[in-house]
């Protein structure tokens, strides 16, 4: 518009822009007055809304910082009437309810879900937990549980001892609701107290791999294993297993467990045909050779030259059963 011109109307004399445009309500027409009222109403409404919004935000922030419980109760919700549990393990709804220990009158909105989740995670059997509200009155708990791979005996201060479970990641925990499980015991470890439990056992991943491979590939051998010792794991990378009929089977984590288990199976089978098949020790840590120690080494076996006793099935001249 002519603003470029008219705005410069300032040098000499008044411009029409200097004329006061407002007129008194008396000089307005009915429509003009109603337009004016409407404008004031709009401005008033805008300020009221802004004020109300500002006050609301202030109150919310203030309540959040100072009184969250009041904030929670301000939000109307039903009391918790039930817990829904979704789990991939053996824990039950009863156990969850016991751990959470919710007040009977607690409403769903008043619950601090993060605190409840932390409470669940304090138990070693729980690997992951999600706690959520399912309106109107249900608390949903979703759990991922640890699976035990071994057992350990822990002594308490009063001289008694208790059986604890050890998971693949080394976490030691009280096993709850497990049915009768035959798991090998761990030895050669030192349980270090940490909070309410123990610090995770180092190197358990390798042990778990060995146990899982053994259970999967040579279950008949695995079922005879009583104790797994981690005594030499740190220093020599060796895992020593005490089986029901073999006092010492030495594995190394440097080599493939499948191969070591195949060698073990072969040796056990081979020895079984001997007159006194009592094995004292089998060492699977040497690649290609498996030194064994027997209670009574038969003369016939002592005569075999070492190179004729190949552990590679393809190089065997006879079947292992004929050996």
């Amino acid at each position, binding site marked *: 518009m002519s603003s*470029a011109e008219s705005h410069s109307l300032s040098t000499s004399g008044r411009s029409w822009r200097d004329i006061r445009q407002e007129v008194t309500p008396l000089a307005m027409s009915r429509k003009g007055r109603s337009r004016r009222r409407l404008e004031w109403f709009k401005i008033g409404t805008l300020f009221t809304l802004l004020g109300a919004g500002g006050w609301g935000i202030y109150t919310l922030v203030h309540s959040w910082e100072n009184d969250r419980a009041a904030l929670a109760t301000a939000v109307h919700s039903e009391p918790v009437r039930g817990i829904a549990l979704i789990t991939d393990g053996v824990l039950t709804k009863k156990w969850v309810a016991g751990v959470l220990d919710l007040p009977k009158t607690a409403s769903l909105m008043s619950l601090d879900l993060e605190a409840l989740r932390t409470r669940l995670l304090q138990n070693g059997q729980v690997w992951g937990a999600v706690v959520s509200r399912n309106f109107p009155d249900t608390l949903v708990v979703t759990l991922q549980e640890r699976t035990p791979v071994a057992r350990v005996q822990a002594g308490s201060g009063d001289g008694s001892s208790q059986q604890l479970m050890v998971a693949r990641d080394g976490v030691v925990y009280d096993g709850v609701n497990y049915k009768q499980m035959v798991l090998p015991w761990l030895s050669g470890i030192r349980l270090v107290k940490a909070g309410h439990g123990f610090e995770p056992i180092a190197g358990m991943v390798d042990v778990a791999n060995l146990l899982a491979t053994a259970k999967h590939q040579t279950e008949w051998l695995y079922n005879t294993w009583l104790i797994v010792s981690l005594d030499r794991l740190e220093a020599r990378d060796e895992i020593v297993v005490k089986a029901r009929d073999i006092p010492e089977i030495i594995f190394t984590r440097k080599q493939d467990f499948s191969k070591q288990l195949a060698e073990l199976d072969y040796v056990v089978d081979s020895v079984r045909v001997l007159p006194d098949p009592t094995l004292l020790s089998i060492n699977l840590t040497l690649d290609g050779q498996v030194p064994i120690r027997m209670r009574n080494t038969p003369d016939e076996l002592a005569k075999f030259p070492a190179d004729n006793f190949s552990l590679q099935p393809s190089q065997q001249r006879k079947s292992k059963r004929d050996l």
Partner: protein
Amino acid sequence: MTSNSSRIIGAVEIGTGKVAVLVGEISRGRSLNIIGVGVAPSRGVMKGEVVDYKAACEATHHALEMAEKRAGARIEEVWLAQTGGHLDGFYNEASVNVKSADNTVTALDIASVCELAKEKELPAGRSRIHEIRRPFRLDGRAVPDAEHLSGHRLEVGYWIVHGHEGKVSDNIHVVGGYHLEVRELVLSSLANGSLLTTAEERQHGVLVVNLGKGITDYVLYRDGHVLVTGTLPVGGDHLTNDLSIGLRVTTAQAEMLKLRHGRATIQTRDKSEKVWLNGDASFGDKQFSKTAIETIAAARTQELLGVIKQKLGSAFAPEHCGAGVILTGGTSKLPGIDEVTANVFGLNARRGESPSWVKDELKDPMFSTVLGIFQFGLRGAHEHAVPPRRKTGFLSNLTKIFASS
């Protein structure tokens, strides 16, 4: 609801005969969409001046309300047409020596010469309405923009239009009574000139005469710029008045005779040819000589056009007015007026026609001023505006970066 980039603007003309309002939606400051029209018979206005505030308010507010209702939107601001016998104009010019050592004209030189040219004092009680810049002259040669050109002496002239402060306020307050702000005041003659002429016609020179009911205003363009504007407190009402006196009838009857039988030229040769006043053979119906009606109307029209020519004085020269004379306003509908105009000014004369973008229902001359307000606002002003001083420096550059992002 409108977006941030569009505004609802009401173009308002408070005339002697009628109040016209157009509601336009202007998007991005350029594109105009006319969305509402309101027309009401004017009251309380004489010769373009408010003489009865209440009556003028009623008529204007009625037109505004009608236009808003038809548009289905609330007017946010008003661009108001200004006319009236109180308006006057004068030309003032100034010159400065170019200050820079290399004689290059700077923005500072331009600002200085413009300020000087507009500096002339107005008499007490007068308000400036428009300051219309003519082309710069640099060492005597006309240049549209002198910045960065080389020269020694920079001159510029302004056509300054001013009016009686009280009368201008009255017009503004009539709109204020509807709780609306007048954002722009546009001279009626400039509004009509913007609408009815092309840039080419303005370049060749053209005179636009708006013959209203109580006021006649005009604008003369030369070399693409406004040379002179003016108003005469004479219009169609005076023809009616002359007929009323000459034929001894009431003003309403005279108005009826003017509309039915009035002509700006004497066409009827048979002096005995009569016309009936009402034509319905009712009681009191009278006969009048058609020649008498034409003679009175033609004499008054010729006189009116002659006064305009006289007021233009030396500014008007037929050789500098190649595009002729354009007539608009209600009285321009008088048959034969273009012929008389051509005779008076010695130029081609024609009735103004709205541009093609104007809808048929708005092509009546009664809307040419309000349409012209939009046209002037969107286009015309930029042709005359003083180029704004360019801002430089770190802060303004920073502002530009953020504004463009």
